[in-house]
């Protein structure tokens, strides 16, 4: 089990802001590390595109249970967006080696405090 906990339970971020949080893990299979990614993905009518904007690695030291902190840098863009055909969703995504266990948490990156809606 993996759980993403964001600092102050914050889910809305400005571009260039540092996103801090921790991963709580209770793994069914041992993994030496957990990778935490800041990614955007598209949803909607078009074929999905996605991109990893930043990444951080948490070492488990071979332990199946525990927690580790991460820091990710929000880029300039793209902003979280919701249109008629396309939505751009930002999320924190984490996974063990070979992605046997994963977790994702949706966030908003935008200078207007929420996703840009058209």
């Amino acid at each position: 089990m993996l759980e993403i906990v964001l600092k102050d339970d914050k889910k809305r971020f400005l571009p260039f802001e540092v996103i801090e949080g921790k991963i709580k893990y209770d793994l069914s299979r041992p993994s030496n590390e957990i990778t935490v990614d800041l990614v955007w993905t598209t949803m909607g009518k078009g074929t999905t595109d996605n991109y990893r904007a930043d990444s951080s690695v948490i070492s488990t030291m071979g332990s199946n249970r525990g927690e580790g902190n991460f820091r990710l840098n929000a880029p300039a863009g793209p902003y979280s967006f919701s249109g008629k055909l396309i939505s751009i969703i930002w999320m924190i995504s984490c996974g063990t080696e070979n992605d046997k266990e994963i977790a994702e948490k949706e966030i908003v990156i935008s200078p207007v405090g929420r996703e840009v809606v058209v």
Partner: protein
Amino acid sequence: MPPRRGQSNQSNQGSIWFIRFFAFVWNSFLIIIIGSLFTKSGTSPHWGMILFMIPFVAVGVFMTVMSFRPKMLLGIPDNVSGVPTLEYEGKSGAKHELKPSSTPAKNLGLSVFFCLFWNGIVGAFVYFVIRDWMQGHHQWFLILFLIPFVLIGLLILYGVFHSFLSLFNPRTSLSLSSNMLKPGQDVTVRWSFKGNAERIENLKITLQGREEAVYTRGTSTYTDKNVFMTIPIFETKSKSTLKKGSASLKLPDGIMPSFEAQHNKIIWSIHVQGEIPKWPDIQDEYNISIFPLGQNEIRAIKDSEKFTGRLGFNKHEDGDVDEDEDDDSEGGYAGNSFKRR
């Protein structure tokens, strides 16, 4: 469990190699067929057949060239982060000459190519029908079957004629006072026409934002477009102000900057529409890049947020990401004047 998101699309390599393989097979067949036309001993080449093969050879050449330019073929942007970068836009802040996304000559070339391809194939069938008709074989079913294809061929021919006339339209030249456009910025748009601009009766210049989504259904690929914002920049019927001029444009705050991924895009473009009576109209499109706000602008928002809390970044989160109560359908700060479609 689904794979994690955020990795680059790996399926492109497979598509590229499939196209290369298909081009190889296509060209191999063509070489065998064309070779057999020339090597039949004791007979002269069948020139009608050779002419018939020209469109197929053109397709083979096109596929071969494009298979070695996969980014262009598959529409893969150079910048996979989706955000426009200045490397492609020249020097920051400089006056920026815009290039049209298409030119009359390019349109004519494409329509001629398509016309030759379509009418080359249909023409061959028509030739055989006429030949049989003259020999007394009246193939009514084939004639009825061919009628829609011939009509489409005539429409394509009309398109070629239309594109040819567009070559003689006045040419637009458009520039912006800056190439580093950002939401909320003021920019001056300058235009001029080369050629007989007196023929234009009504000139309209607009900024348009649209979404584009590419998707596959079965073996076909489709592109859906949705214009989400149209901002008038300039409109006139006066011949004196029409030929050359400038207009100021304020980009609304809070708009979505340009975005370009492989299948999904947010495109901003300036459209120049000139009505010419009894002649093809001017319909030029100039794509522009609107960049996300820079660190200084974001810092200013952050500082103002400390005092006002207007955007809600410092509110206590209750677990719901989309929690805004004052749903401003204009998608940004108040006070913008723009028209939505």
